[in-house]
């Protein structure tokens, strides 16, 4: 039943995407509403905090998307892979720019990820345990970059293994191996047995 629902949803999203590609502004807005919240959270969890904030990077990502959307070919799964691929590239660019810029003062926001999360602009408002989420994000970030990224894409962005593989330009099996290693490391860290 769940699979059927997902298929129907996917079919609807495919149609939505097709209309958006052909210039329907309402469908594009709907597409944005569907994809943007998870994209922002993914960017936030990946380190787009403060300077520049996640929504800025997301906005840059969407600007890139709208520029090339008329030439896009594929279904909704392909679109998501493409979207997160662009987002990753934007993040890398941002990190490079940030590294080149001299630091004037030590920013306390960059010292404590849990604090960053608590101080974030209303992303979490009582529905989730902020400490819990802050801690798990911190632990995931402590993993090697590829493993951390796989977990973020799989859990926060809700991409399938194939979509994650496309976004990271890896094979699905490589993604599975990375996810397995990441999970094992996290369990060891937290002290949870399988």
């Amino acid at each position, binding site marked *: 039943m769940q699979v059927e629902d997902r298929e129907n949803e996917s079919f609807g999203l495919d149609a939505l995407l097709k209309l958006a590609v052909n210039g329907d502004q309402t469908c594009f807005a709907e597409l944005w509403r569907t994809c943007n919240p998870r994209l922002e959270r993914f960017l936030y969890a990946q380190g787009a905090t403060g300077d520049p904030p996640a929504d800025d990077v997301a906005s840059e990502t969407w600007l890139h998307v709208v520029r090339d959307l008329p030439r896009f070919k594929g279904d909704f799964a392909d679109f998501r892979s493409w979207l997160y691929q662009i987002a990753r590239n934007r993040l890398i660019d941002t990190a490079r720019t940030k590294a080149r810029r001299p630091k004037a003062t030590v920013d306390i926001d960059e010292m404590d990820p849990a604090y960053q999360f608590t101080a974030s602009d209303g992303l979490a408002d009582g529905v989730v345990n902020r400490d819990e989420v802050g801690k*798990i994000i911190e632990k*995931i970030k402590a993993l090697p970059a590829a493993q951390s990224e796989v977990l973020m894409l799989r859990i926060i962005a809700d991409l399938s293994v194939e979509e994650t593989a496309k976004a990271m330009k890896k094979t699905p099996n490589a993604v599975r*191996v990375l996810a397995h290693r990441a999970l094992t490391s996290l369990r060891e860290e937290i002290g949870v047995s399988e």
Partner: protein
Amino acid sequence: MSRVIAWLRNILTARSAYPHMDSKFDADLVNDPIFDGLRRFAELSSSPNSVPVHLLRQYTAGQRRAQGRRKWRLGSGALFGVIILLPSLAYAGVLPNSVARAVQKVFNVISVPIQIPSVTKTDGSPSKNPVETGGSAPTGSVQVPDQGLSQSEDGTSLLSPGQNSNDGNPESPESSSPKPLPESPESSSPKPLLGSVSGSISVDGSDGSDDAGSKLTGQSSTGLGATVGEPGTDNPEPSPSDSLSGIISGSSEGD
């Protein structure tokens, strides 16, 4: 034997040894209780529900650009098709007379053969340049009388005996190679040569008499001609028109 069995067992159990390679593991990862909080965090709907205006503006601009590209592609394709089809339509008589004539005119212009720019002649005589006239290039054969006369009147050797062997083989590179011209001790003025001379040298006068003329025909490597007089004769300074003629010609005159 035991090694082989162990190896086979390894292969057969590889799937269970690496459960993460199984697609069943994909769902397990996402539903792991470790990530409960993270999942809830991801599912929150927070950010503003309306698309930013600048994004919509960019979207509209992008669509307009894409339409422009599409139109340009279609237009250029159609133009190309028309260009390809016009001559056929003109020949088929489908086009109106005036259009067909215009097409004919355009294709006449297009189909004019490429002309090699030639040197303008002052005397108005037709150009002897074989490329211009459409004639064949000088064969470069050397015609020598039976006696093997290869000397000019004053006894200077013009041709080495071995050069006769190229008769009947006009394409031989040796026959068209520049021949060294004799330096006459009596000549008072140097003979102007424009470029090296290549081509045929025919020596008339098989009886070896004094009035035997020598005729040098050929073409200089620069495309210009040069008049070469007989050694020992008072050859007037060549006029520009002579120098520019495509043929080297000269007649032997006895002293």
